[in-house]
């Protein structure tokens, strides 16, 4: 098995690089999207919060693979042609944003409304109160859920192989189709995912500890 890894490690590592890149971009951008969605749902007017609610239920109510296909195979009909990686990243951002919006909503609503009132009482606008008082606390509280989301995303990003984005899973498949060592190759792929996930989880746990409010 080691020999296979040594023979193909540039391919494995390149695939891993794509996987990690796609995951990090998707998760962080998903946090930004999710934050706006959550704020729109909680603080927006009736129209905004209805639009957000519908958007979230559509995204959460349909398979990620279908969303990916619509963006990669569907959009060219409207003149939008995307590379596999771009299509994957866009669909992951949208998908992750919808999930993260719900985590963040819970987290924002768990922060007592009296802090926002207090912020306004010293002359902050509602937006300043959200930005300086509510979000710094809500984002900290959402780290455990976010870590979970990141783990899912690393694994779900393997779905990108079906549209040919050359992430870790795709590279594994290409290697296996060359040497026919399916067991060994996929075992290595699994091991790489495992190690990377363990590393990221311990990193995020460390960050979580570091930013915890006493």
């Amino acid at each position, binding site marked *: 098995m080691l020999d296979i890894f040594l023979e193909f490690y540039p391919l494995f590592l390149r695939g891993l690089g794509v996987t990690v890149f796609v995951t990090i971009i998707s998760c962080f951008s998903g946090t930004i999207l999710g934050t706006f969605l959550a704020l729109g749902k909680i603080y927006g007017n009736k129209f905004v919060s209805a639009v957000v609610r519908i958007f979230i239920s559509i995204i959460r109510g349909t398979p990620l693979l279908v969303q990916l296909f619509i963006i990669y195979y569907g959009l060219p009909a409207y003149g939008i042609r995307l590379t596999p990686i771009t299509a994957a990243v866009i669909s992951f951002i949208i998908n992750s944003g919808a999930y993260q919006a719900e985590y963040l909503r819970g987290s924002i609503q768990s922060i007592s409304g*009296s802090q926002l009132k*207090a912020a306004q*009482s*010293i002359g*902050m606008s509602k937006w300043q109160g959200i930005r300086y008082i509510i979000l710094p*606390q809500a984002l900290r509280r959402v780290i455990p859920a976010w870590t979970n989301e990141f783990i899912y995303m690393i694994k779900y990003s393997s779905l990108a192989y079906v549209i040919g984005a050359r992430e870790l899973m795709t590279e594994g498949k290409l290697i296996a189709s060359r040497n026919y060592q399916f067991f060994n190759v996929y075992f290595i792929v699994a091991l790489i995912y495992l190690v990377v996930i363990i590393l990221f989880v311990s990193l995020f746990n460390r960050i979580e500890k570091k930013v915890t409010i006493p």
Partner: protein
Amino acid sequence: MPTKHLLRIEDLHHSFENEEVLKGISLALDKGETKVIVGPSGTGKSTILNNIIRLVPPTKGKIYLEDTEITSAKNINEIRQQIGFVFQDFGLFNHLTAKGNVMIGLTKVKKMNKKEAEELALFELERVGLENYADSYPSQLSGGQKQRVGIARALAMQPKLILFDEPTSALDPELTGEVLKVMRNLAEEGMTMLVVTHEMGFARSVADELIFMEGGNIVEQGDPEKLFTNPDHKRTKEFLFQLTDLYGEGEN
């Protein structure tokens, strides 16, 4: 409309849905005065305070801060800077230290530079006796200390008056004294304060005027000593008697 009062409330009404909870409140505060509002639960005391800084915009009536009509003002955030508010449940920002709680209004609202803001924050914390707790987070403070941070936060904005909504009623009895003492000092230093409280000892010894409210109306207002000993209304007597019985006259 010019006025000699610092704060003037004229015929204030407020309704939640179809229920009228304030039915025409008028009162005024001059510079340096402390007035205490008492009344049974659900009478609309908090609603008055929330109406003043428009955290809850009033349904009808006019409120003036000096010459500015708050009720129609476009720049409500600027007016809020001039009126401190101390909450029953403190409303401290949990992710910030005591010092951070006091500073953030200075840096983000008043756009003061960090160093100046820090100096002022430390000064205000010292004023409420918390100079040794500047770096503590709210969760590391007792209720009385939290409320004093709340007061320091209000003071740092250098407001023209401070509104207190039952500042001690979330505290254990042994912690109310330290907060009342800070408030008493402020009154003596000439701060203008409108205080909702059940602390009759404080009302009796600090207030320039006591306002007894019930059912959305002011029943009686005047010299606290008179309301305690010889009120015009029977209800005033009954209520104050009952409160004094419940909470005692207090040390402060």
